[in-house]
């Protein structure tokens, strides 16, 4: 038996990043800005979109990533917003994130030229989505106050892989034994100076600021991810 060692030294996620760049080129050609929206399951991604998109003066499309089902896409479709559901359950037990190739497969279903902003609602998960770029301009993550204050320290990849942190469900603060300052301190420790928005998708508090942020993204700011 003859064994040969072959030196490679190649980023293992290169294949994904190559497809992500192809997606990005398509988005740029159509003049559509793209937000990758990430969070743990149940942090309120879809609810925040429901609260936000109605009052947004932009042509918006939504790509919904879920392991299974179309419950979230149905909620967005009810607002007469173009939406495409991507299910990831074709993988081994269901992929826990969207990757660039999955997103690419869904793009023909959109008329990208007719959109200003495409929001990709990733699969709820605080680990994998942070590692797989999909061709987005910018990334936002939502953490809710029903999660622990230590989450940034436990999931630093996610809290660093975003240009905005939305703290959702602040209407519940008065009912919870939750230290908001500690959360903000931990976010700042992991990702110093990242913009943070305090929001309640339920009461509408802070939603205007999130809408303004999306409008800025559609206009070409903030800086690309």
């Amino acid at each position, binding site marked *: *038996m003859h064994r*040969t060692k072959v030196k490679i030294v190649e980023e293992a996620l290169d294949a994904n990043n190559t497809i992500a760049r192809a997606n990005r080129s398509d988005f740029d050609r159509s003049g559509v800005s793209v937000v990758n929206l990430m969070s743990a399951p149940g942090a309120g991604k879809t609810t925040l979109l429901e609260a936000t998109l109605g009052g947004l003066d932009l042509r918006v499309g939504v790509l919904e990533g879920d392991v299974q089902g179309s419950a979230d896409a149905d909620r967005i479709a009810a607002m007469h917003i173009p939406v495409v559901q991507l299910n990831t359950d074709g*993988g081994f037990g269901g992929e826990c994130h969207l990757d660039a190739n999955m997103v690419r497969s869904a793009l023909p279903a959109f008329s990208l030229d007719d959109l200003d902003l495409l929001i990709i609602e990733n699969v709820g998960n605080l680990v994998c989505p942070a590692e797989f770029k999909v061709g987005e301009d910018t990334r936002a993550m939502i953490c809710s106050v029903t999660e622990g204050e230590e989450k940034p320290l436990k999931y630093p*990849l996610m809290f660093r892989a975003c240009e905005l942190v939305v703290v959702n469900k602040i209407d519940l603060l008065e009912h919870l034994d939750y230290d908001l300052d500690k959360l903000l301190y931990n976010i700042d420790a992991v990702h110093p100076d990242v913009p943070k928005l305090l929001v309640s998708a339920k009461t509408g508090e802070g939603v205007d600021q999130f809408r303004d942020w999306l409008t800025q993204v559609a206009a070409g700011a903030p800086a690309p991810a």
Partner: protein
Amino acid sequence: MHEMSLASAIVNTVVKHAGDRKVTLITLRTGGMRQVVVDSLEFYLGFVARDTCCEGAKLEVILVKTRFKCRPCGEEWEPDLPHFRCPNCESADVAIIAGEEFEVDSIEIDEEEAACTAPR
């Protein structure tokens, strides 16, 4: 929980380089910031490598310690927690100089083993 996806990414990378030759060892360099659970990665690699040239290959993991450097004052340290503030001058302008690696460093190929059936 991301180990299955990462295992797939490793196999895709290796298949690209190995072609139809049998791979017996994959050496991976992964940084502390990547939060990879090696046992879990090995487990999933066993699944996703089936019917590829990586089937049965052993995994060797080189763990790279996370290391930060403060840009303004030059302080370097190995953090216990992912705190991106310089312990010396409190600056937030901190670079990760090691710990973000996730790369296939090398593979070992059995030149005499029968060609695998994986698509190239």
